[in-house]
């Protein structure tokens, strides 16, 4: 499958009025009637080459949306179109082809890498699954991806196992794995929540660099507005399964319209003591 984007449609991803409800599956026959609405009519568009931030607190539905875009779960209503094609109607070979083009950087590099697989095998696995490259070419692609993820010299990492890597290096290996198929679209779900603040910063710079070098479009899922401001062109703020606000990152942070966005901004460390002439007593 290679649906060309229509010229009148520069958006790589269109999410329209998506609903997703989880049923509370308690009880012997899972008959309990309680339901939880994770997404309640979410719409957003992501343009080619954009880094789009989806910002919200735990339980807001941001990860659910990421999973729906990857077609890891089914939705109850709405549509998600990738290059103009409805992804939730894809099956078989077309679905597999879609999955080649959309990749994910998972949240926790301590859990998402197989401890029995070396960095080389981890990064090469997508190529094998998708029968992508002849064996001779494979090692070159793996090496390029590892280098692009900032692990240099790449060959020195080939035979390392996850336990021999630091948290930041693990996340770089996960990024290499996501990039090896040269996807168009990458979902990064809280890619730095398990990492130190200073290491997070280097990962953000790496994602920005990959966008610049390879023109990849990113959906960046985070609870950290400061990170979203640094990395994203546009952001949408999600609360209880609904988008409360979206627009250019800078203007949302400077002029938040919703109370929830304001609460997210207020919760950020502000170093308010820096602005006060005298030491503020602890309250």
């Amino acid at each position: 499958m290679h649906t060309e984007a229509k010229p009148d449609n520069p958006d790589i991803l269109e999410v329209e009025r998506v609903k997703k409800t989880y049923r509370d599956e308690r009880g012997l026959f899972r008959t309990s009637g309680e339901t939880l609405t994770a997404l309640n009519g979410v719409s957003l568009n992501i343009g080619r080459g954009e880094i789009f931030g989806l910002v919200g607190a735990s339980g807001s539905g941001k990860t659910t949306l990421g999973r729906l875009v990857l077609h890891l779960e089914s939705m109850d209503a709405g549509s998600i179109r990738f290059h103009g094609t409805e992804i939730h109607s894809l099956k078989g070979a077309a679905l597999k082809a879609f999955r080649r083009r959309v990749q994910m950087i998972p949240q926790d590099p301590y859990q998402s890498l197989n401890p029995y697989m070396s960095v080389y095998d981890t990064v090469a696995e997508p190529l094998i699954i998708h029968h992508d490259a002849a064996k001779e070419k494979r090692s070159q692609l793996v090496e390029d991806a590892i280098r692009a993820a900032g692990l240099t010299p790449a060959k020195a990492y080939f035979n390392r196992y996850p336990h021999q890597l630091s948290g930041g290096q693990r996340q770089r290996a996960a990024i290499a794995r996501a990039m090896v198929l040269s996807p168009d679209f990458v979902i990064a779900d809280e890619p730095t929540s398990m990492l130190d603040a200073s290491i997070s910063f280097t990962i953000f710079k790496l994602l920005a660099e990959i966008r610049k070098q390879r023109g990849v479009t990113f959906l960046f899922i985070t609870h950290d507005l400061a990170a979203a401001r640094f990395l994203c062109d546009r952001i949408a703020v999600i609360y209880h399964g609904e988008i409360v606000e979206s627009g250019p990152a800078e203007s949302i942070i400077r002029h938040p319209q919703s109370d929830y966005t304001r609460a997210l901004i207020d919760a950020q460390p502000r170093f308010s003591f820096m602005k006060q002439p005298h030491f503020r007593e602890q309250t």
Partner: protein
Amino acid sequence: MTLLEVDKLSIAYRTRTATAAAVDGASFCLEKGKSVGIVGESGCGKTTIGMGLMRLLPPNAVVQGGRIGFSGMNLLALPDDRMQTVRWKRISMIFQAAMNALNPVHKVGDQIIEAIRTHYPEISRSDAAARVEQLYEMVDIPRSRAFDYPHQYSGGMKQRAIIAMALSCNPDLIIADEPTTALDVIVQDQIIRKIKQIQHEQNIAVIFISHDIGVVAEVCHDIMVMYRGRIVESGRREEVFRTPAHPYTQALLASYLTIDGVVDVDFTQTPPCEYPGEISPEICGYIENCPRATDACRTRKPQWRELSATHKVYCSLCE
């Protein structure tokens, strides 16, 4: 009044082939009711200091020297049974990821009662239960939830319960090791406020350990920056933020993303992601990554330099 006085504390870990220095000559003081933050990246030794103060280091750790003075005692010289009377009653700890260590098959309140009665066997179960309800009030969890199971709690509630457990025996000092990591920003902010409020109201001293200099700055009066086992800068938080002196502190602040850009971000300076190999204890640990390192840094040992009565830096450039 000085509550805690750590003097040249050095801790190393033995491995099969070598001994790795984790904390190298750490010295600091903490007044009663004050708070100090230890900030640094993974592996810099900040948790080792906390565990060393509690004397809960793993068996392969060796305390190579130094003194931990705590209200007139040297904790390092106390026999184990005496140390047990200090632990939790005088110094308690919010362990890293403790909220995920609550026992899933026991009610949360019962786990706090267990902590109380382990240290005060004379307290009856019902008195301890009353204390749990009082603690829950303090950390803003409804009393009615005290005897629920951990899976019925949200992440923020579990962390509040862990704080209640740390407060249960009325300690003078709480060591909080990454208490907000893995919580989202809004819950993190609530927990930080709670810790500050309790610290102030109960006049408890707090050592706050975090990799996040922003979180530390919100909570603590004083900040110590650690790098590769050494404290490299310490001072009042205003001093460390306004006039960071050590190149590592400067890089750490430069890489901190804020929402309104209070900290000036210089993108040319970012802390490295790696430790380069073994370093000599005689020279500065930051030398391979320091943008300002000179040849002289390779030959001489860094010295402490006092920038003010409270602010000092360990760097050979800042002399």
